[in-house]
């Protein structure tokens, strides 16, 4: 009964990617192996770690819990969409300045979770930040610097920090 091919067209970071894929191909693997966008990381492949979080039509979702065929016609944003050439996005800049990452495995999923969060809540409290990040595991930092980076990013996005 296996189904060996289906045409899909997924827009990732503004660019259309048309492929023939097996229905069982995960969206995370489509992005990494078919579109060559390896910025999105894959940790657990069962929804727990959050490393694979991307924006699906603007909302953060687990790309390991979707099939590429389900994203046919959708618009995806990945971590590669953040920087403008050599200029880092304020979120990335803040994570660098506050040491919000060590190995960086969790970072792409965290940044893509935070982008819509800070757009909706430009001045979050620490409790709100921690709740927003509850679905993203980091095994390196202990989260303290991540929370500090989010505060800095929020201030930068509000125009209060250079």
């Amino acid at each position, binding site marked *: *009964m*296996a*189904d060996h091919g*289906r045409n899909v067209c997924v827009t990732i970071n503004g660019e259309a990617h048309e492929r023939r894929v*097996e*229905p*069982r191909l*995960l969206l995370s*693997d489509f992005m990494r192996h078919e579109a060559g966008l390896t910025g999105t990381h894959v940790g*657990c*492949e*069962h*929804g727990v770690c*959050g490393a694979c*979080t991307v924006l*699906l039509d603007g*909302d*953060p*979702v*687990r790309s*390991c*819990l*979707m*099939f590429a*065929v*389900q994203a046919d016609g959708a618009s995806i944003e990945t971590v590669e969409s953040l920087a403008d050439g050599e200029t880092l996005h304020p979120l990335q800049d803040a994570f660098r300045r506050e040491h919000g990452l060590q190995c960086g495995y969790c970072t792409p999923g965290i940044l893509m*979770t935070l982008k819509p*969060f800070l757009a909706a809540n430009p001045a979050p409290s620490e409790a709100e930040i*921690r*709740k*927003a990040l*509850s*679905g993203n595991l980091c095994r390196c930092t202990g989260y303290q610097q991540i929370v500090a980076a989010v505060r800095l990013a929020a201030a930068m996005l509000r125009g209060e920090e250079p």
Partner: protein
Amino acid sequence: MKPPPFAYECPTEVADAVSLLSTHGADARPLAGGQSLVPLLNFRLARPAILVDLNRIAALGQVTVEDGTLRIGAMARQAAVEADPGVARGWPLLTEAIGHIAHPQIRNRGTIGGSLAHNDPAAELPAVMLALDAEMTAQGPAGVRTIQAEEFFAGTMETALAPDELLTEIRVPALPQGTGWGFQEAARRQGDFALVAVAVLLRPSGSGASGIEARVVVTGTGDGPQRMRGAEAVLTERGTGGDAYEEAGDAAADASEPADDPHAPGWYRRKLVAALTRRACRQAATRMGR
């Protein structure tokens, strides 16, 4: 950690989805938000030959209020219902409980119908739907039928749905004027399944010794949501005075038989049942009559 091969269909009409399910029988599985099913596929704990994706059936995604009854399409996303102002006004217990399901990224895909059809024994929504006397609409090859929450949840990961039946809609009646609600959950971490969760509704009533009618539902202690009739009787008899909540909590704990598991020993869960029932009663009482 890659899913086994399967054939894939994505109908746009409920009738087409039902006919696919009835043609393929036990080989077919509906795919809703995928937040429980895709992990099972990735672990290869499930190997359906064909997935019937419900995500392109627009008719299943609606959330409306009609004559005071909340009608939730089975494919309504948990995040959408959580953010719905009409739901928050009329059924704040539901809004509150959804906030305890996993994390925002998961609620953006996870559906109300998927959680109810999956019926994980520690899931929040089945407990809340049982407390709220929800009615499930199911559609199968023989037509449409209505199933009361009490019959719908049939034990750990079991429901009254036949394999070729789709859950299409959940109807939640309006809460009687003055109903107070409480919801308490203990989990190991933010977003985890409940160790124990308790939903309580208290409403002023003409009948009953104390002028109060109570509904107490506990989950996390065994086969899924359980109505605690002993605790309800205590509250109906004693009302909100004295140590009625203490007694209700003890009655609920007495009726619970949680087994030991790696997350918590049974005795700990029973203590949680007593404490959370007490707290949910207090919460509900402060909101009653407003």
